[in-house]
């Protein structure tokens, strides 16, 4: 199975990269763009075939390494 882990900075944690992207979009003439937040997506190929167990494993990996929960939150999707 494949697990897709999305890691984002928590709300309230300054995201200067997102802000810079927002500025660049504005410079390019795109209007109506509010706050921009940048994160990362990590795809995991898992040998596990049970969806619930795959999700639990990916969540454990996210909590232990893929995200730093002091500053980041994560979301796991199993496909």
């Amino acid at each position, binding site marked *: 199975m494949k697990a897709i882990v999305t890691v984002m900075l928590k709300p309230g944690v*300054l995201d*200067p990269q997102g802000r810079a992207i927002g500025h660049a979009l504005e410079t390019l003439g795109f209007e109506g763009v509010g706050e921009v937040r940048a994160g990362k997506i990590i795809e995991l190929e898992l040998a596990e075939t049970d969806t619930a167990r795959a999700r639990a494993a990916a969540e454990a990996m996210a909590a232990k390494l893929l995200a*730093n929960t*002091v*500053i980041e939150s994560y979301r796991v999707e199993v496909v």
Partner: protein
Amino acid sequence: MSLRAGIVIFPGTNRERDMAIALARVTGGRSPAMIWHKDTDLPPLDLVVLPGGFSHGDYLRCGAMAAQSPIMRAVRDFAASGGYVLGVCNGFQILAEAGMLPGALLRNAGLRFLAQDHHLRVERTDTVFTRGYAEGEVLRVVLAHGDGNYFADEATLDRLEGEGRVAFRYCGPDGAVTPEANPNGSARSIAGVTSANRRVLGLMPHPEDYVDPLMGGEDGLPMFEGLVGALAA
């Protein structure tokens, strides 16, 4: 003058030799032990140093990979048994990622890598790292980081302040801690924090860069002299 210091080297560490020079300068030329990250045990040491650099290419997050290295289990045990650990720059990031110090180092608020002199104010002198300074003393140090923006939630920051664990703050040349003198957006201008027992220090700027007049300054020297005075058998 027999401080037994060890410097941990990860792939991508690049400040280990500067740190070794700074330590040798205060130990009568004694070379610190150089310890590879794949080692699982530390030799008998008084001080473990995690130096600056870009361990594992800063992959995932600065220090995230190094924090999982085999040697870090030994470093954690060393600290848990009362050992002294100094993490500078990437070393600070590694200590934070390893959960040995609270908080995290985010991308500099201005997004730019900072390679410049800056000033620090000494907030605590009751640690082995800062005993060579006077409280409120202003140091000139070198910044060399892209991710030095110290972050912790408000409750953690209040706890750190209450427990007197903020060792250094960024300041102006006159010692004033102001938003203008905060180079990277760090919460409460924090540049260095200690563990609860004050035996682990994480610090973003590089005290090892200014230990000789030929380097352009000596403001880092009291840290190393203080360590020798406190820890050398």
